[in-house]
């Protein structure tokens, strides 16, 4: 296990050290300005977003005892998408539509779904499985409303909405790093603080509760911290799929271990994974870049199928 951990750390450091140098600009043309003002904040943002999404994904998989739970399971992403779409459709004609209003509306959308759900989860008479169902219900409802709104929107608004929904790290600088860092770091630390309780949930809610775990508080806190972190990430970068789903499984497979340690590794591997995907997004297409959300989904989905194949019964 120690060897595996060492190898994993080595690999992460290699990816993290190399990725800011990868991109459309060749290394010879990479001026200090491009490196420090564009690549480095983008690298930091990628790491923060990846870390938050992976930590939330891992926590949700423990909380819901479901290996397919993701940060978007509880409707946070769908709420943010609807918020962004409302901003695009309603504000574009008023002239108020800019990066900040879009971000604020997406964040409001994310919170409008996640906070009521988190508060609901504190109620002892509500089963954890039902919270998952409510989250999926919210996601589907938000998706349907979004489709309806897109139907009424004109071509340019729809194009902008689609562009936003692909998820990208390209429109960022140090300002956004600062904006992103506080909520995401708080959210990650908040979730990591619940690690013992989340781990105890593996025994089933009844036994965990009897062992002293306040499962209702754990549910509420995990959902609230996740809402803050994921809401901020989605508001800034759009929805970036598959990171939260795949990364915990990659860690389990790489370390051949599935206990509490997976949660602690999630921010490191999640951050590295997104930075790697962003590097790939920058170099894959000559003359332009592909939104990172496309890369994570394109790589994440086959990776997930591969993992399921590796996990098959002997």
């Amino acid at each position, binding site marked *: 296990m120690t060897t595996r951990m060492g190898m994993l750390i080595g690999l992460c450091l290699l990816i993290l050290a190399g990725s800011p140098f990868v991109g459309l600009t060749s290394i010879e043309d990479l001026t200090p300005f491009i490196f420090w003002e564009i690549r480095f904040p983008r690298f930091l943002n990628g790491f923060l977003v990846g870390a938050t999404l992976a930590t939330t994904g891992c926590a949700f998989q*423990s909380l819901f*005892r479901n290996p397919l739970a993701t940060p978007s399971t509880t409707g946070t992403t769908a709420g943010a998408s609807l918020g962004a779409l409302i901003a695009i459709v309603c504000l574009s004609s008023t002239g108020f539509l800019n990066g900040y209003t879009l971000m604020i509306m997406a964040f409001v959308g994310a919170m409008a779904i996640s906070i009521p759900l988190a508060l609901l989860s504190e109620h*002892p*008479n509500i089963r954890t499985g039902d919270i998952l169902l409510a989250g999926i219900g919210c996601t589907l409802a938000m998706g349907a409303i979004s489709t309806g709104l897109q139907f009424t929107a004109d071509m340019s608004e729809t194009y902008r909405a689609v562009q936003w929904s692909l998820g990208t790290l390209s429109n960022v600088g140090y300002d956004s790093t600062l904006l992103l860092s506080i909520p995401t770091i708080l959210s990650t630390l908040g979730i990591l603080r619940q690690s*013992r*309780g989340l*781990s*105890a949930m*593996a*025994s*089933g809610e*009844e*036994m*965990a*509760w*009897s*062992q*002293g*775990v*306040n*499962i209702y508080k754990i549910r509420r806190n995990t959902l609230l911290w996740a809402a803050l972190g994921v809401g901020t990430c989605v508001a800034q970068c759009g929805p970036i799929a598959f990171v939260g789903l795949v990364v915990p499984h990659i860690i*389990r497979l790489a370390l051949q*271990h*599935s*206990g*509490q340690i997976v949660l602690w590794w999630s921010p490191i591997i999640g951050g590295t994974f997104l930075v790697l995907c962003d590097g790939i997004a920058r170099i894959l297409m000559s003359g332009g870049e592909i939104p990172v959300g496309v890369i994570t989904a394109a790589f994440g989905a086959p990776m997930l199928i591969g993992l399921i194949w590796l996990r098959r019964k002997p």
Partner: protein
Amino acid sequence: MSTVTPFLEATNINWQHILHDCSLTVNKGDMIVLVGENGCGKSSFLRCLSGWYPLKSGTILLSGTSIRNLSPLDKSSTIALLPQQLNILDNIPIVEWLCNARFRFEEPTQKSTKKVHDLLSEYHLDHLQHRTWPQLSGGEAQRLSLLALRLQEATCWMLDEPANHLDPKVQQLVYRDIVQAWLQGTTMITVTHNLNLLFQIVDKQYWDRVRIVGMKDGRITMTQNLSSNNLANEMGQLYDLQGHFVDIQGSKQLYFSMENT
């Protein structure tokens, strides 16, 4: 004259049309055995007593304090619960799973891990430490679950049919572990159908202290000691069968026959 507050006092528990006016007083160090037909409400009653099911009517006092007002952490030093079916996540390592039982102590992981290893050695179960949950047999899983209860160091264990699905030897081992913990001072509330294991494992001198509480259609209809001569008859009535005591190699055993045969 001073009155001693009972360890647990349940009064007029009604729950979801399943339990009707169930009352039970448990003193420290008691062994309560809940018996009755399938579906009579034994497991529901146990879950109410543990505080897991929120009550709409009736009260449960744990050392004089309403169980409603106690947080899971407060309760965990008093009550350790073993549900009938454990639903453990597949790949969790055994040692880490057992460490979860130490949650209430808020101690460093190394300390919990040491405790777990010590106890695994004491019970000669250390060969299981590198397994995962699906790699355990039903008996191994149940013995480890009892170890989890020991690690929690609660003053009362609540067990829901702890040996029902196990082979005869493991049933004996599991009940030996339970009776040993009881004789060491743990208050025990257990749901079972098999009193014969208790006749075999509990020393005759303690039979007076084992209280058999019978339930029928959600009501408590019988309270007897293990030593009571009327137990066979009352147990028979509980299951609509004829109950008899038989002697097998010097050990008292309960035997049931169909009423009309």
